Each structure stands twice: as structure tokens, then as C-alpha cells.
């Protein structure tokens, strides 16, 4: 009996406090950049696709909603031939972003992805790839490490020495 009265009192008290709910969609809530919403594929500062199709996001995905196929560019660098996320399965856990070694895959604060038709929840690379660097403005995987590319010779990655001349007799 006492507990019921106390509950009524508590509810009554809240009538006079400031409301937390907002009038969505007229009023948009603030979501921080690290909010885990719609997934995008970003580009590096040079405008190239960041994704190297290493498959780590697909492997770590707990609902297995990422599928991709690796292909190779003329200069030997890797990129995804296709990259597909089935958002009707995605749980926005962000583990793909954590696993990504190139900061390619990032979650954004956009959560408005409702569709009438489930098939429209399947995003291909053309839907995922944005023309920007996302949360990591400076990072370019191939400048830091990785194999030789068209613009980076052997030994030009971060912390690398010039290639060894095996025919040299010098120590």
C-alpha cells in the first residue's frame, strides 16, 4: 500500500521536471561523431578507396552481414571488387570499425535507414563509399606500411630503410 502511494507521488513529481523527450523528427537529437549508426566506407586523404579488402570486418562481424571480394589494381594494391553490407542483419555493434586496419569502415551518427522493402537494406559498395576521410583525416595505410605501390617505392613507407643491395659487399 505504502509502495503504491510512493509510486504515485514519484510520477506526480515528474510532471514538474523538464521533459527529456524531443519532438523527433521535427526536432533532431544531437548524436556525437562516435555514435554507432549507418556504416560508410571512407577514402584516404588522396581520394583513393581506403579499403584493402583484408576481410577482417567480415570475419569479426557477429551476424556475418558483410561480404566482399578482393581484387588487385594495376600497381598491386588491393581493393574490394564488391563490398556488401546487409543492414537488415546489422546490429550496429561497431566491431567492424574496430577491426579495420585502414580506418576504411566507419560508423556514422546517421540512424535513419528505414525501408519498406527489406531488399533496399542491402548496401553495395556504391552506396557505402563516401567522398571523405570520415573521423580520421590524415591516415593513409599504404603510406604507413604495406607493399610497394605506384606512388611509393620499396623503403618509402614509414620507418623503412632503403632496399638492400644484396650484391654489395659493404656491411
Amino acid at each position: 500500500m505504502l509502495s503504491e502511494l510512493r509510486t504515485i507521488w514519484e510520477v506526480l513529481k515528474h510532471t514538474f521536471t523538464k521533459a527529456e523527450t524531443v519532438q523527433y523528427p521535427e526536432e533532431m537529437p544531437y548524436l556525437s561523431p562516435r555514435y554507432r549508426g549507418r556504416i560508410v566506407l571512407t577514402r584516404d586523404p588522396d581520394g583513393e578507396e581506403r579499403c584493402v579488402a583484408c576481410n577482417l570486418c567480415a570475419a569479426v562481424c557477429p551476424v556475418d552481414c558483410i561480404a566482399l571480394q578482393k581484387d588487385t589494381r594495376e600497381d598491386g594494391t588491393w581493393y574490394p571488387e564488391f563490398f556488401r553490407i546487409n543492414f537488415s542483419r546489422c546490429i550496429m555493434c561497431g566491431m567492424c570499425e574496430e577491426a579495420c586496419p585502414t580506418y576504411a569502415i566507419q560508423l556514422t551518427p546517421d540512424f535513419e535507414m528505414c525501408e519498406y522493402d527489406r531488399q533496399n537494406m542491402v548496401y553495395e559498395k556504391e552506396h557505402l563509399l563516401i567522398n571523405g576521410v570520415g573521423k580520421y583525416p590524415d591516415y593513409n595505410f599504404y603510406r604507413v606500411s604495406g607493399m610497394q605501390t605506384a606512388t611509393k617505392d620499396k623503403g618509402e613507407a614509414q620507418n623503412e630503410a632503403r632496399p638492400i643491395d644484396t650484391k654489395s659487399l659493404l656491411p
Partner: protein
Amino acid sequence: MPTIYIDGQALEVAQGENILEACLNAGMDLPYFCWHPAMGSIGSCRQCALVQYQNEEDTRGRIVMGCMTPVTEGARFSLNAENATEFRSAVVESLMLNHPHDCPVCGEGGECHLQDMTVMVGHRDRRYTGKKNTHRNQYLGPLIHHEMNRCITCYRCERYYRDYAGGKDLGAQASHDHVYFGRHEEGVLQSEFSGNLVEVCPTGVFTDKPFLKHYSRKWDLQSAPSICSGCAVGCNIAPGERYGKLKRVHNRYNHEVNGYFLCDRGRFGSGYINSDARLDYAGIKKPDGSFMAVHQQQAIDTAASWIKHKKIAGIGSPRASLEANYLLRELVGAANFVAGFSDSEAEIMGTIVRSLKNTTASNPSIKQMEAADAILILGEDVTNTAPRVALGLRQSVRNKAFELAEQMGLPPWQDAAIRNLAQDQRSPMIIVSAMDTRLDDVASRCVSLAADDIASFGYAVAEVLAGGKTEDMAVNEAAEILLGAKNPLIISGSSMSHAGIVNGAVAVAEALGSQSKPAMLSLCVAESNSLGLALLVDSGLKTKPLSISKLAKKSSKLDTLIILENDLERRASNTDIELLVKAAAKIVSMDILENSTLNNSDLVLPAASYAESQGTLVSSEGRAQRYFPVYQPAAERLPSWQWLLQLADACEHKTLSELEHFDQVVSACAASQPLFTTLVDVAPMRDYRSQGQKIPRQTHRYSGRTAMNAGVSVHEPQQPEDTESPLAFSMEGLNRDEAASLIPFVWSPGWNSNQSLQKFQAEVDGPLKGGTAGVRIIQSTGLGALQSSEPAEQILKSHQWHLVPVHQVHGSEEMSANTDEIAELAGPAFIAIGQKVAEKLGVTEGDGLIVTQGKTDISLQVKILSRVAKNCVGFSAGYSETLELTAGSLVSLIKDQQWVRPTSQMIATDKRTGTQGGSAHV
């Protein structure tokens, strides 16, 4: 059995092994890099360190290398002592000083031994602030991709390539931290076994180049136990599939057959399965000669109307499964069934089957061949006809070294010491062949003889063994080494298309047998199921089995001819094919790739490749082995056995229409003749369960299941069900403790690389926990094989030569030659001559010669060999350009004046294909 103590735990270990082996046998995880079960220890990587104590009181101990320390009674070790774990972690840390951070773009990532070992020792943070060494890569051909930055200098590649496989063009260069593994200059790796570098390298220096073009991680591949169809050795393979494409072929361990290694034809020769020339739908020929696609049921109904109550015949195939051949034979009746060998091959296969059934010699597995201490090879270039056997023979000639080591008290795993001790001393091996063979470099004597003379050589050796005398030094030497050996091995085969050579080899084996010396006799045959097919036709009838040419002659009385996976162009003369096509009212044929036989047919049925179907193959060892589908056939393809079963059903065949499942076909086939009764034991039947479940073809970390088909429909389809085998197209179930013939891939917690194999072996380098896959079905009566008399010699006119088939590991085999990389390596068809003949004809390597055989003239490129028998010229066997040439026939040669010399284009080809080429190789 000494007892040793590891961290206080008493272990009974085998005498003569080292501590690393003892630890792995006990299930302990001791990291290692340079040690390999097939190649022994050299102690170069310093990774398998543990602490050894003097006695119970000793608490300090000293660090020793596990792979270099033999077990001794009462020895005390610690794996977990702090200084041991610190030492191992420090070793990995120093290996990682120069290792690039490119795992995301490395073909080894996810199945990398270095990744596994780094995680195992717990190294994480880089402390060294200096720069990383870098190296230039090399172009190593279309099969192997080179990325030298990743090297940890364990020397496994060099030890495998040079010491184990006998390669000469890959080795270590420079010293200290400049060490480099590569060729002296860019170019195609010359060894037929270069593909094993991919599995031998503990990291990503050597990776599978064709696989990189359409790469998937190991955890994403759907795999099944399979058998290589590249030749008759029957190596066990584990092909992997993703997105409906066969991605790569990996070795599947079989203790007695292929062990840890495959040849390049087996590893890289399956690309044809993804070819655009594959048929998707059945087709009926329209009056204008083009084909109209029809559905399965329509095709079967049409075929049934042509077969039912009609006069029919069937042509089988040595590259189709035993079950498919059996079904066809039952469908058309044994009297109307042609094996599908060419006429000459049919004769040799008959000889081989009769010999194997009665010989006093044993038919050895590769493991047994590796124990041979004297070898006589008659007429066979084993490296090109049964490649994996040749790799085994390179180990058998080392038995001399192991003998010396035993006298010195050296354990067999002391690799560097034994090689140093023996230097160039090898067990004797005599090669009698018409031309160069790829084993000449390890032979103690090479004899160049024409085909008939090789046969006579065999008989002569047999005569000397029986007490006869001869002037011929080589014959005497051969008899002497065979008599002096504990395990003599005689190798011959069908590649020279000469039954006399096989008979000669059998004569030698029998002569040894009658001296009560048990010999091993291995007879190489051409295709994956040649022996199985020969066994099938050998016992069906009292009369001689029908041949293609005989069928062609009587085909006017034929309504329908059914051809099973056989391109007649490769096995019959053009006149016979024309006769068949004209006379048979209807031809129904099924095959994997488009070919001329299909184009001549009235109804073609698209057959599934080995990767999409199941069946039994009988290897040249007489070992029946089962392959299972890796993935389901696309479009309306069906495995041949299912086409035939459905045809039989539609025709209301008396016995066959009662069969429904593959297992029932196997049982029916097994009941058909006494030799086949053990076929039911080749692999577990479809009701087999491990831990109550089917064996999963997918890894537990198979990714993308809810997205891979979402591009077509977001509504996920049910996993396909496999009603025919104990394997499932699923990741459910446990890939552990199953029968050896069912292991689809190897993986164990903490061991993602292929080194996890040791968790599946009963002991290091021993058989698998589930036994050894396959059943040997030929039980010899031991009565002694009958020998026919010596062949008569042909008389040569001047300017005439005997044609000798020269088999090539890349190019001679029908199916693999349709793979791009193999075709590139195969090069153009050639005519092989000796230096003297070349001078006489006025040609040099790369010129053209017109070869005239009867009425046929063919222009072929000249290849000059160092060793050619008198009056012999070789031609590239099995190439589409040389199909009209017949082994043993007489030809004349004239220089082709219009010949345009080809220019070398190897590196240019690589650049054109793009993917891993271009500047990345600089």
C-alpha cells in the same frame, strides 16, 4: 622408451626423437619455425627454446633448442620456465624488427605460422625504434608471388627447394641481415614442385599467385577432402571454394601417398574448373549444327527415348570416377562397353593389370618407395608422368646418407649434419630412357636407348639376375645394385606407349622374386582412374574387351552411342572418329569442358568437375580413394554418375533404376567383382556422423553468410543439403577426430596455419589420427606375372626416326592444360632432338622442323636435349598440336624454312595480366 620430465610431468617418449617432437606429440605448444617434419632440424631460427636441467637439484638450467636436443632417459626440461618463455618472446620480437605491417594485404594472413607463433609467445609491442629493412621482389613466374620484405630467414624455402626437391634456381644470397631468398635473376621457377614453397614458407614471402587474383581468406573457404585428378598418383588435396569459384588447392596430408607436398600440376592445374568453356546447360543439336539449350528433364527424356529398346554402346573414360564408368557399363551392357583407352593404351593397361594381379613384387606407396635403396627406372620420365613419385625418389636416393648417419650415431632428423656427412653420396639409381629425364641429376647412371631396346634391357637384367652373363656394363651394374639392395625398386609405366617396356620391368621384378628378394614394382599409368577403369573392364568378359577402333568398325549397327567424359580426339584416329560419327544414329556425350567430341554429339550433358561431384579413383598404387564435392555444381550441371543414374531410371533399367544414392552405386559396384569388394570401405558412407553431426565443410569463422547472397535476394536461402556424403555445406559440427578420408581442412585453436596438421596426426610425421585414407584394392596372387617374349626390332630407313612421346608436367595432361597459368608454362608444342641430329638437319633451338608421319605433316618448334637415344626424336605428348603423332611410328624430318622464331614473352605476359605484375615486381 626413455622417460623425460617436462615441467615435472613425466613423459614416455620414443627413442631417437628430439624434444620438439616429444613436446608436439604430447600436445604441448612449443613454437618453432625452421623445423619441418619432412625436412628435419637445423636449429637456425632459435624459436623452440626450452630449459634443460642437469638433475633434480639443478634450478638454474640452461637454454637448449628443442629441435636439436635428442631425448635421453631421465632428462629434465621446462617449457614454462621464465627464462625460456622470455627467450622465445625475444626471438619473435627480433624477427619482427624487419617484418612489415602488411598483414591486411598479405596472402598468408589468417593462415600464417608467424602470426600464430607471435600470438603464442605473447609478443605485442615494438620497442625497437630503428628502421625496417626492405628488399626488392622478383618475378618468379605465373605461379608464385614473391614479397621478400616479409622474410624471417628461417631457410625453410631454400632447404625445401634445393635440398628436398632438387631445385637449382632458388637460394640464399648475401649475409647477416641482408640475407635474401630468390633466383640469381628474375624468371620462372624451374622446379615442378615450386608450389610447395607456399605451404613451406612460415610467412608470406612465397604466396599462391593464381589464388591472389581472386583471393579469399582461409576461414572463408569451403573445403572438402578430394583427390587430385592431374595424374595417377592419387595425391590427396583440399580444394577451397568461395562465391561458387574454386579458389585454390592445398595439400591434404596422406601419410602413405603425398605426405606434405604436391606437384605444381596438382596445386595450380584446377583453374579450368572456373573456365568460361564450361557447359551450363544440356544441349540438343539442331539441324543447322548449333545447339539448343534444354532443361535437365527434357535432356533425360530425349536421351531415354534414344536408349530404350535400342542398340546402344558406351565409351567410358580413364578420367571419370569408377562409379560413373560402372554405371555406364551396366547401362549399355558389358559387351557394348568400351573402356575409352586408345588402342595402344588399352593393350598396355591390360598388361599392367595382369602383371599387378599376379606379380610376386609389391606395388609400393610413395612412403614405401622412399625406403628403397636401389632403383631401376625403365622408360619413364617420372617427374613428368607421376611427379609426386619423383619427389619421393629424390628422398630414396638419400638412404645412403641415412645409412652413413646411422653408422655415425646421428639421428635422422639432424639434417645439416647428415647432408654434410654424405655430400654427393647417394643410393644407386639407374635410369634407362630414350631422352633426358628430370631425375638425371641424382641418377648414378643414365642409359639412352630406344623403346624396344629399353624393353630388351629389362629382359637382359632379368637374365643376369637369373644367373646369365652379358657384356653390357650397364646391365651388369643394374643387376648388381638390385641384388645388393635391401629394398630394390623397379619403376616403369605406360608413358612410352610400349607394352614391352612394362613386360621388361615385370621380368626384372620376377627375377628378383625368384632370387627370394622381395622387390617393389611401381608402374606409372596415365590418368587419375586409368587403373580403376582397366580393372573394371578386365574382369567383365571372357573375350578381349572392345576397343574404340573395333567399335568404329561395327558401329553401323548402332542406334545410340553414349560417351562419358572422353574427348575421342585424344584417343582415336580421325578415321575411326569419322566412322563413329557417321554410323551412330545418335551420340549422347557428357563432359566438363567443351571439346570436339561434344561438338560431334547430338545431345550434350554438362558434367560436374571433380570439385563438384564425388567418386572413387584408383591410383597407380592400386589405392582406391574417394573425392567429395567441395561445392554444389552451378546451373544445370550434374555429376556424371547422377546423369547416368537418371538416364537408367528414365529407361526403366532393370537393376540400376533401383539405385538412388551414391552409396548404393558404390555397393553395387563393389558387388560386381571380387577385387572391388573393399570399395565400400574406401570412405565412410553418408550416414557417418562425428560427435553426432556431419563433418562441416566450412570453418567455424566462415564469414558473410547473411550477405553473400543478399545482392540477389535479402531472403537468405537454406544451406544446401548434402544427401550423398557425410559432409555438410555448413559450419555446424566438429572437424576433429573424424576418419582420415573425411578431413576437409586443418585448423586447431592457436594454430591457424597448415602447421595445425600436427594436431591431426597420431604422432609427428605419422599417420593421421583417423588412419590413412584409401584402401588398396589389388591383392596380388603372388603366382608370378606372365611375360611375353622380347619385341622384334623395327628396321629403319636412313633419315627416319622413331617417335618417342615426351611428357611434360605442364601441358601433357588434358584438363589442367586448359588452366591459363599451366598453358603459359607449357609453351608451344615441340619436337625434341639431340645436338648431333640438330647439326645434321641444320637447326638450332627455336627453329622449326616439318615432321612427316605417313601422310601427316606438322611443323613443330625444335627443342634440343642433352641426352637422346640413337635414331629417336621426341614430341610433346598430349599437346593439342601433336595429337596426330603416334608414339613408336617412324617419321622423317626436314627443316621448316618458313618458320618464324618465337620471341620470349614471359615477363610481358605477367604485366599484361596486371594483378600482381608490373612495377610491384621491381
